[in-house]
């Protein structure tokens, strides 16, 4: 990881620490001009069991929760209705699995830019909690490996 990410990620991660769900190291993959989709990645940890049920962002027309699965050597991506967050367990959204899909991007996402995401969680009783997440844009060329595991 480039050192320049350390400081912004520290503040982004700690700013949200008081909430029911803790979001660590959120990032979005940069795009090239006229590329209409990208992905957002992060780690989610909820104190009590809940579900990530939706996401939105002003930079994209549609935001969906997706799951990437490998069937043999074939990659398949599918929208999922919700993502279960068991209590006190870290769930990774990474280029190797679940991710938030930004579809119909209204602008190019450039490295270093901050993308605001609104995540909605549903508690077991049906109560909804919305959380604002500021995700930093990381270079397109980036495997995402190890970068989502930072803890502060």
């Amino acid at each position, binding site marked *: 990881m480039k050192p320049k990410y350390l400081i912004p990620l520290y503040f982004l991660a700690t700013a949200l620490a008081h909430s029911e769900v803790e979001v660590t190291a959120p990032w979005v*993959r*940069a795009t*090239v*001009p*006229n*590329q*209409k*989709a*990208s*992905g957002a990645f992060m780690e989610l940890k909820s104190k009590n069991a809940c579900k990530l049920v939706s996401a939105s962002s002003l930079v994209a*027309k*549609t935001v*969906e929760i*997706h799951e*990437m699965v*490998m069937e*043999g*050597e*074939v*990659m*398949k*991506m*599918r*929208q999922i209705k919700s993502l279960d967050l068991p209590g006190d367990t870290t769930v990774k959204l990474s*280029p*190797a699995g679940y*991710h938030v*899909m930004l*579809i*119909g991007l209204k602008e190019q996402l450039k490295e270093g830019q901050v993308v605001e995401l609104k995540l909605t969680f549903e508690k077991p009783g049906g109560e909804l909690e919305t959380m604002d997440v500021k995700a930093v844009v990381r*270079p*397109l*060329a*980036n*495997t*995402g490996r190890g970068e989502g595991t930072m803890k502060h």
Partner: protein
Amino acid sequence: MKLIPTQVPLKNHRAQAAPCRSARRLARLAVVIGLTSAPLLGADEPAPAKFHGTDVTGYQLDYGFALKDTAGRELKIADFKGKVVYFFFGFTQCPVICPTALTRAAEIKRLLGADGEKLQVVFVTIDPERDTPEVLRSYAAAFDPSFLGLSTDPEKLKALSRSFKFTYSKVQTGSSYTMDHSTASYVFDPSGKIRLILRHEAPAADCADDIRKLLQEKTN
């Protein structure tokens, strides 16, 4: 190891949920080779497998294909003579596998040092509908300025997938569509013959090692 291609006609490629049988067979063969070759060789022959990747030397690929670069020029595999050519088939809207694969390709090139110049990475779009030449050009170059983004028309892409035995299909998801696709990379030696299939999960160092061997073959 010779892989004899079996032509299985694709009736309706787009609607096809399961990848074509021949591709599955190749994938299965690749797995079998990968799983069995090391212990077998260890028992009978002391020589280790030559490559980390799956050796497909002798595979009868249809070499007549041509792809368009982002300036509209047609390129054939013979145009890259003297270089190892590394093919990856994907789409730019893929936020997961494709950027990871191309980041690895850039890492492989870096690991090759000065020999990196003798590696040509080619990103072939399986989503020509959305991957315009402009997007394709800047996307490929974002990983390394030397990487080429190539495309072909849908019919030729189908033929190419049969020949390379990779699968791809358009799948509706939510408000948009996505592409299911094979994730392996295909490597041609400097004479333009297909030699290796590299798994998506293979470490860059192993891939670089294999490519170095192919580059050395030329001079030996």
